[in-house]
């Protein structure tokens, strides 16, 4: 990678988004591992009920309080209730009263059911973590593309009726964070598969329309291996066309052809991504091992890129 391309990765707050199943959490885990080895203090922030970091690092589930999940790597999960208590505490200044508010049956039902409360207290928590200089960088795992768009669109949606007041302050500080090119970058993760590529290009366009967001890098994960050169591919194809299905070696040729097609599809996807997405790009080869070994080899690839 060239000097300008790795710059967004040095910003203190980084959001990662992309279609589900592309290995977003794995890339994020690898970046955190590489950052820790470079002497940084990375914090992985997970939203929602699933904790990928525990699966990736074979460790305990990330809780609300940041805890170390791998050497030098901390993780936290923004859970609704403690985040709500944190937000209320920030307004009322007294945690016992905040706890009382959350325990009040009627208020609790109101908070649990009202659209937007979850997103606001999440924004508040992320801004709170970003303001804490114990962590650098903060890597936020936004679940899926729809979720990410909701997350970034929320301030605009709520502005309509939040003209002032405490929630407005939360929105303003979150908006200020997201708009600050020095502090924040939004990265996109994808794989070179047709469905993922279409969704990624749509996501990129929608994010780019938002002039206040600062897009960082495109990570392309799981690039399939090249098994055969051009001449070998031709040979396989020619023999396969001639062979009768009864030949004992025909199925093996079909498998080889399948792997060749897998790579060709990926190449086509890569061309599409390069044509339509104008972002510094990092690519990672496909790996078959378990998540721990994948993190290890991806983080080595990142270290070689000398980001920090």
């Amino acid at each position, binding site marked *: 990678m060239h000097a300008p391309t790795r710059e967004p990765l040095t910003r203190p707050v980084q959001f990662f988004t992309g279609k589900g199943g592309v290995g977003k959490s794995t890339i994020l885990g690898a970046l955190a591992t590489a950052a820790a080895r470079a002497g940084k203090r990375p914090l992985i922030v997970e939203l929602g009920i699933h904790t990928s970091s525990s699966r990736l690092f074979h460790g305990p589930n990330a809780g609300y309080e940041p805890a170390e999940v791998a050497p030098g790597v901390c993780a936290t999960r923004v859970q609704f209730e403690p985040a709500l208590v944190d937000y209320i505490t920030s*307004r009322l200044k007294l945690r016992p009263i905040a706890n009382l*508010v959350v325990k009040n049956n009627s208020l609790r039902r109101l908070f649990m*059911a009202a659209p937007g409360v979850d997103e606001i207290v999440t924004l508040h928590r992320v801004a709170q973590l970003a303001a804490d200089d114990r962590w650098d960088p903060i890597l936020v795992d936004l679940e899926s593309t729809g979720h990410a768009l909701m997350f970034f669109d929320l301030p605009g949606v709520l502005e309509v009726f*939040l003209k002032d007041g405490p929630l407005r302050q939360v929105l303003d500080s979150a908006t200020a964070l997201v708009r600050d090119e020095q502090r924040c970058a939004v990265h996109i993760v994808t794989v070179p598969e047709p469905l993922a590529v279409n969704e990624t290009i749509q996501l990129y366009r929608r994010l780019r329309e938002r002039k206040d967001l600062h897009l960082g890098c495109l990570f392309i994960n799981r690039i399939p291996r090249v098994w055969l050169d051009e001449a070998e591919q031709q040979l396989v194809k020619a023999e396969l066309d001639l062979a009768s299905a009864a030949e004992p070696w025909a199925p093996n040729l079909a498998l*080889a052809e399948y792997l060749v097609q897998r790579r060709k599809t990926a190449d086509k996807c890569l061309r599409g991504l390069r044509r339509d997405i104008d972002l510094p790009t990092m690519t990672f080869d496909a790996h078959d091992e378990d998540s721990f070994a994948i993190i290890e080899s991806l983080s080595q690839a990142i270290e070689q890129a000398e980001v920090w």
Partner: protein
Amino acid sequence: MIELPRDCRLAFCVGVGGVGKTTFAAALALREAVRGRSVLVLTADPARRLADALGIHGLRDVPSDIQLPSHAPGGELHAAMLETKASADEIIRRASDDQARAQRVLDNRIYQAFSNTLARSHAYAAMERVHEAVHDPRYDLVVVDTPPAQSSIEILDAPARLVTFLDQRVVRWFLQASDDSPTLRGGAIAQRLLRTVAGDSLVSALTEFLTEMAFLREGFAERARYVRDLMRSPSTSFVLVSSADSVGIEAAKSVAAEVVGRDFELAHVVFNRAFIPEIGRADHAPVSYPDSLAALVPKLERMRAALVEEEEQKHSNIVAFCAEQGTGAWSLPEATRPLGDTSALAAWIEQGRPVAPPT
């Protein structure tokens, strides 16, 4: 063969994103239609995957009729995509006797801000659509393709949440807490706290919204209660769709726990892209290749071995999952050609293989 119980009237496909959940929901609905049932498949996912899988141009909120690949007496397939805003507006209009009143709700700024965004509003609208569809005499079965992970759970929790929120006491407490009557002093104090926490403008807007909505409340609460109970009834099935690699298996465990923890009936666990049909046909014994391929033999063998290893790893992941969860599972092949029409879709689901049936 992956099938739903004959008495199943509602099925939810759940799982994390990127595993082919939408394609599977389409295939399952098609399979049931071919068995002679009239099926509606409803996607809550804004991406256009359901239309792509069914080989049609686009999907709208209004169901489209899908042509079945073969003649099936009594079988029908319909597909629709849930658009939150359109659905929500329609629900409000239909539930209102008085259109002026309905218009006041539609014009409410809180309603407008939320009906178009946010996972939670989307989940409420989906719940209403499910309620409508299961009462529609045209359908014997409704298959719901839920959005990925987090939002999928959001959809499962929406009915129960809405029931609690729309509880008459809560709403009355909230609206009347604005009065200073002594019996409601507890509510008044709580509302003052709420104003401190959320700000006057929001609480006022919310009060206005709940007042406008008051006449709709009982209907919403009733439908929410109905769907909440229906989700736990024996005629409702949940199907978990997952990938079979190590990361996918872990995700499947956590989604399964979410489903079972809510007392929902997990009818099937389906692992997609778990095998490649050609591997089964490949001879595992050493093969003698023709001379023209001699130079390539070591590479061909390594390629086959890599795919076999990948498949065996997935298979043992699935077997371990079944043992740990005490469940059976199905594996589905990787579609080596794109599934762009109903014939391909029907052929694909027919290749499902049972793995470790439940004991």
